C-alpha cells in the first residue's frame, strides 16, 4: 500500500511539473502582453521599459528558471495588470469560487439524484422522458444564456433576486442554478444508468423475491450501491466547477477564480494565468490522488492490479 501511494504521489508530482512547463510555454505563444498594457501608439521605449520591468526581455530559459525558483519558494509572481502578488489575488477569489461551487453542487445533487432515481424506477415512462429532456437541456443550453434568462425573469420581471454581485445568499441563487444545471444533468444521467445496473442485479432480484417492500429495495439496497459512482463523479465535478465557472462568473459579476483566469487571458497577464492554471491543476491532481488512494483502501484489488 505504501509503495502504491508513493507511486501515485510521484505521478501527481510529474503531472504538476509537466503542467507548469506547458502553461509557461503556452502563455508565451499568445503574444506580447505589453501591447495590452500600454496605449497602442506607445513609444518603443515605453514598451521596452515595461518588458524590462516584468522580465520579459530576458531569454525564455532565464524566465523559466526564475519562475521555477519563485514557485518553489511559494512565490507565484506579481500580476502584470493588478501589480499585486498573484497568490494574494488567487486566495482573495478562492472563497467566492468555493462558495459558488458548493452551492451549485448542492443544487446539482438535490435535483440530479432524485430525478435519476425516478427515471430509473419509472424507466421508459413519462418520468423517464421528462428526466431525459431535463438532462438534454442541461447539457446543451449554454450557461451564459441560461444566466441571462434567469436575470431577465427573476430580477428584471419579478424583481425577486439581485441581478449580479455577491455578498448575500440571494446573490448566490441564480449563479448556482446556471452553473449547477449542467452538472445536475450529468448526475441525473449517471444516477439513472447506475440505478438501472443495480436494479438488474441478482441481489436486488433476491430482495424482491424475499418480498421486501419496493421502497426498501430501492432505498436500502439499490440506491446505496448506485450512489458510489455518482459521488465519485461529484467529487471531481466539484473541483471542475471551481475552474469552469468563467462564463457564469462573468454574467453574474461573481468575483471568482474563473473570472480571474479570464481576465488573465484577456490581458495576457502571464503570472495570473500560470498561477491559476497551476493551482487549479494542483486541485484536480490532489483530488484525483485522494480518490485513487481511497479506492485502493476500499478495494485491495486495485492496488494489487497496479
Amino acid at each position, binding site marked *: 500500500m505504501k509503495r502504491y501511494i508513493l507511486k501515485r504521489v510521484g505521478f501527481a508530482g510529474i503531472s504538476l511539473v509537466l503542467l507548469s512547463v506547458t502553461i509557461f510555454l503556452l502563455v508565451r505563444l499568445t503574444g*506580447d502582453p505589453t501591447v*495590452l498594457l500600454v*496605449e*497602442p501608439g506607445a513609444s518603443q521605449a515605453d*514598451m521596452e521599459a515595461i518588458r524590462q520591468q516584468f522580465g520579459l526581455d530576458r531569454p525564455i530559459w532565464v524566465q523559466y528558471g526564475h519562475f521555477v525558483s519563485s514557485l518553489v519558494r511559494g512565490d507565484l509572481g506579481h500580476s502584470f495588470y493588478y501589480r499585486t502578488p498573484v497568490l494574494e489575488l488567487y486566495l482573495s477569489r478562492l472563497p467566492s469560487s468555493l462558495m459558488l461551487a458548493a452551492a451549485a453542487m448542492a443544487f446539482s445533487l438535490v435535483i440530479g439524484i432524485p430525478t435519476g432515481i425516478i427515471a430509473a424506477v419509472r424507466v421508459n415512462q413519462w418520468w423517464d422522458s421528462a428526466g431525459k429532456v431535463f438532462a438534454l437541456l442541461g447539457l446543451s443550453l449554454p450557461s451564459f444564456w441560461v444566466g*441571462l434568462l434567469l436575470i431577465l425573469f427573476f430580477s428584471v420581471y419579478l424583481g425577486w433576486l439581485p*441581478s449580479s454581485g455577491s455578498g448575500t445568499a440571494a446573490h448566490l441563487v441564480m449563479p448556482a442554478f446556471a452553473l449547477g444545471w449542467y452538472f445536475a444533468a450529468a448526475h441525473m444521467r449517471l444516477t439513472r444508468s447506475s440505478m438501472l445496473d443495480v436494479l438488474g442485479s441478482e441481489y436486488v432480484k433476491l430482495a424482491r423475491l424475499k418480498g421486501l417492500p419496493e421502497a426498501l429495495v430501492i432505498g436500502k439496497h439499490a440506491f446505496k450501491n448506485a450512489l458510489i459512482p455518482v459521488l465519485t463523479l461529484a467529487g471531481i465535478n466539484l473541483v471542475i466547477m471551481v475552474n469552469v465557472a468563467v462564463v457564469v462568473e462573468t454574467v453574474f459579476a461573481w468575483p471568482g477564480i474563473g473570472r480571474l483566469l479570464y481576465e488573465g487571458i484577456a490581458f495576457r497577464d502571464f503570472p495570473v494565468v500560470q498561477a491559476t492554471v497551476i493551482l487549479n491543476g494542483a486541485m484536480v491532481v490532489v483530488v484525483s490522488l485522494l480518490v485513487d488512494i481511497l479506492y485502493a483502501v476500499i478495494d485491495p484489488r486495485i492496488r494489487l492490479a497496479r
Partner: protein
Amino acid sequence: MGLLRRRCLTMLPAASNAVRSTVAVTLAVLLAGLVGGPGRPAAAAGPEGQVTWAVHITLAPTWFDPAETAGIITPFMVLYAMHDALVKPMPGKPMAPSLAESWTQSKDGLTYDFVLRKNVRFHNGDPMTAEDVKYSFERYRGASAALLKGKVARVEVLDPHRVRFTLKQAWPDFLAFYATPATGAAWIVPKKYVEQVGEEGFKKAPVGAGPYKFVSFKPGVELTLEAHEQYWRKVPAVKTLVLRTIPDESTRLAALKLGEVDVAYSVTGPLAEELKRSAGLTLAPTYFTFTTWLVFSEQSDPKSPWHDRRVRLAANLAIDRAGINNAVYLGLSKLSHSFIPQGMEYFWAPPPYVFDPRRAKQLLAEAGYPNGFDAGDLTGDTIYGVAIGEPVANYLQQVGIRLRLRPMERVAFFKEYGEKKLRGVIFSGSGAPGNAPTRLEQYAVTGRRLSRRGRALHRAGQRDEPAGAPADPLQDAAAHPREGDVRAGDRARLPQRGGPASRGPRAGSHRQPRVLGAVRRRAPEEEVT
C-alpha cells in the same frame, strides 16, 4: 439617497476593454465640466447618500497610484476621484490650474515655476507642499517617464509653495507631457505617507488630494470611496461613491433597470436601443479622445493604386460617415475628419469630406480604374475593427474598391501593425490622452512604431529649441505640424470618423426626471474632478 439615484448608460460600439475604458474616464471629466468647475460653492448640506457606478472593466490597484500611469486614459477614472494634479484638463480648459494656482515660463523656455495652492490637504490631513510635487515627479515611472525625465535637468523646491522645473534644453512640449493625461507625473502623492507605508502599502491604502478618499477595495468586485470634505475645489455632494465591476453589458443594463446601480457604462447595439425604450432611463452621449481611421499602407509604393491621390480621395468620398453613425451608434457619435480628437488642444478642423459616391467613381476612372480594383485586405482587430470595418468595406465596395475584411486578434494585430507587416488598408484607432502634438508624435512621425512611410514630420523629441528660442505655447502650436498637413499633404490616413467609442456617445438616464435639476447639481461626476 433616493433623490441622488441616477442612472446612466454609455452606448459604445463593440470595443475592447481598453477602448471602452477610455470612455469611462472621459465621462467623468466631461460631466464634471457640464455641472461643476472651480469656484462653485460647496454643497450646503454636506455630502450625503451613495451613488453606485457600474463599470465594464476590472479595476486594478495600479490605477490608485499616479506613478504607474500607463499612457491609457482608463486609470484617470480613478485618479480624478482620488488624486489631484498641478494642472489637468477640465471642461473647457485643456490645462486648468488645479493644485498649482499658476505657473510661469522663463523667456528662454528653460524653466517653469509653479505656484502651489495653499491650504490643500491630503486625505490623511497632511498639507500638500512643493516637496510632494518634487517627490511625485521623481517617483513617476509610467508612460513617457524616460522621455519626460530626460528633458528635465532638476526640480527645485523654492519654498513650500513654489517649485521650479529646469529643463536641459528648451522643450515646448514640456507642458504637453507634464500637464495633460499623456503622463501622470503632475499628479501629486504625499511624500511622507508613501515613504512611511511603502509602495505596496500605498496601493493597498492610497492617499491623495482628490475629492474622494479611499475606503476599501475588493479586487474584481468594487472600489468604495468617501467624500473628502476638505477638498479644495468644493465639498463633494455625494458621501459614498462605489465603482462596481459588472463585466457583462446585459447584466449592467439589468442592474440599472433594477436600480441596483445609478450609473452604468458601455451598453451597445440592441441593448442601447432597449435602454432608449426604457421608461425613466435616458441616453446621453459623452465624447472622449478616441478616433478611428484607415491607413493606406502601400501609398508610398508607386505601383499601388493607393499611390494616386485621386484614389485616396475617392475612398474618402465613398464612405457615408453619417450613415455609419446612424446605423451603428444610434446617431450619437460626432463625425470626425481628422485622426486627432476634436477636443484636443491645438486641434485643427479640416474641411469635411462630403459623401459622394458618384464623384468617387469618377475619380477612380480618372485614375485609371474605371472598374475599380482589388485593394487587398482591410485589417483591423476583432473588436472595433469589425464594427466599423464592415460598413466601411461595404461602402468602398460600392464604388469598386474591393477589400476583404480581415479581423485579427488584438495582440497579433498590433504586433504585425507595429512590425509593418500588414499590407493593404489598416483599420487603426487610438484613445491616447494628450493633445494634438502628442497624437501626431505617435501616429504621424516617420519612424515611430505605428507610423507608416509618408511625409516626414519632425519628431517632437527632435524639436528641441536652442536656449533662448521663443517657447510660447501659442507660437509653439503654430510651429507644430498641423494635422491638416498630414491630411492634405500625404493623405497617409483616411480620417474615418470619431467613432462613438472615439467621439462616442454616452448615455445618461434618470428614473426621476422631476428631480433632474437637483440630481444634476448633486450628481457624483461633478465631484470626480
